[in-house]
């Protein structure tokens, strides 16, 4: 969401900006409840309304036609897909995903999640996902995030990137860290500051 909104204000980026909810892994923390809010801000949002869904994934998730054909849309497209192997497999049902030379798959990594809580675990996780074009360090502990934790995450993600020959595109951090962190995470990666929307996204 933050990335799509950021692109909206850049003149060097093709418009319109489309944000697509393809998170079939965890149908809770999705942008679906924020669809109206994001549309008002200027984004094209391809997502179900919560009231249009049945069982929130219990009996499978239904893909909309405009999701399946989303890569044919003009402008710039940000796809939000779920985590893990299941998340990355979602791209299998998007028309043209396998052939589109402009599609970049960015892996967002959080040192705070036990599954990626060590260098070894993070490396193993990244390896099993298939094609990845860039890494984003999003190391945090929610409300308990500290500057040192973000930077520790940057170190580990960098190490993973070096071994896998995948560039670290950026470090993400909440807006409240801007004064302390500045423009770079200490390892030369630009910092993308995040406004948190999810506390408002209750189903």
């Amino acid at each position, binding site marked *: 969401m933050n990335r799509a909104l950021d692109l909206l204000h850049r003149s060097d980026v093709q418009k319109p900006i489309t944000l697509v909810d393809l998170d079939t892994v965890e149908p809770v923390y999705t942008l679906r409840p924020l669809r109206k809010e994001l549309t008002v801000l200027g984004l094209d949002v391809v997502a179900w309304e919560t009231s249009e869904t049945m069982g*929130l*994934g219990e009996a499978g998730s239904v893909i909309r036609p405009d999701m399946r054909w989303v890569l044919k849309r003009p402008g710039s497209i940000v796809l939000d897909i779920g985590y893990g192997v299941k998340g990355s497999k979602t791209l299998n049902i998007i028309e043209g995903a396998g052939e589109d030379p402009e599609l970049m798959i960015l892996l967002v990594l959080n040192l705070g999640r036990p599954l990626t809580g060590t260098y070894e675990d993070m490396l193993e996780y990244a390896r099993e996902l298939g094609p990845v074009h860039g890494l984003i360090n999003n190391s945090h502990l929610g*409300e308990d995030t500290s500057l040192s934790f973000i930077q520790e995450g940057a170190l580990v993600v960098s190490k993973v990137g070096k071994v896998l020959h995948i560039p670290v595109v950026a470090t993400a951090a909440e807006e409240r860290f801007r004064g302390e962190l500045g423009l770079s995470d200490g390892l030369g990666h630009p910092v993308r500051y995040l406004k948190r929307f999810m506390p408002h996204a209750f189903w």
Partner: protein
Amino acid sequence: MAEIKPIVGEKRAFMTGNEVCTWAALAAQADIMYGYPITPQNEVMHYWTRLAPKYDKKFLQTEDELSAGFTTLGGVLSGAKAFTATGGPGNVLMQEPISMAEAMRIPTVMVIQQRGGPSTATVIYSQQEVNLTTFGGNGEGHRIVYSTATHQDLFDYTIKAFNVAWKYRFPTFVLGDGYQAKMRESLTIYDPESRGIKMTSSEPLIGQPGMPGVDRDPSLLRNTYNTEEELYVVIKQFQKDYDEMTPQIIEHEEFDCEDADVIVLTHGVVSRSAKMAVRELRAEGLKVGYFRPITLRPFPTVALKKALNGTKRIFLAESAEGQFYRLVTQSIYGQTVPIDTLFKPGVGITSEEMVEKLRTIF
């Protein structure tokens, strides 16, 4: 295979509640999970199966929750630290195996993530499985039920559930809900040993060595009796054991009750809103107190009665239509303190709502 510890020492982590339950079961040295999918607890199974090979654990997906429950019992009978997870209609189905666990004193551990009811209802959230989890089945509710409110609770009480189940031999439940299951927050995960918590060993309940009656007492694992009198003796003994156990395991949380004019009574995730509401109103000078039972079975009756001494009103809130209310009123029978209620079956309760309602009481 040399044992690899899933958690070494302790550290802060950020994850969903379901994932927390999995890590806690691993930390508690659980051997096997038997499971059947149902929202909102599926990820307990997903993470367990993902992590099981690394830690030499086992998993069996069964054909339904009846089978998941009975296979869990079977696993425990064979000496494994077995557990399962379910919610909603799955919890309804599990009452048959749970009844057997009560009858045979089988130390099962079950994570229940409540969803809307009755029947399929919603896959989302409620506190509508209190009846079911505390007194479901065709027995006397000889079970232990922890109602968690935070991810730290989910971790701590899943570990505790294994110890308590194996020590006292009553089926034990961690009662969460769909919100706790799916939301993400930080907590401290730890190796129990690093905190001086010794995990109770499991042992086979069947196939014990030696001749029964000669080398050892008979195991007497049975769930069926020939006469009413036999059953009567057994149930009375179970109740005696339960009553003796109660002071050892009963838990609750309270603050500001001593001088409270109104005491807010909640359990589970609703307690988070209650805590915020009570603190906000106290800061304004209103005498509000907070009481949260952590064990719904056994219920902290003594502590609640003491907390209610001198109070003028009770304000009870739950995401159900009176299931917690019935536990409370049964517990404090004879008390004449008026009770105001906020019943929101299947719907979350915010601190703002509670504050608004509490202001009308003062």
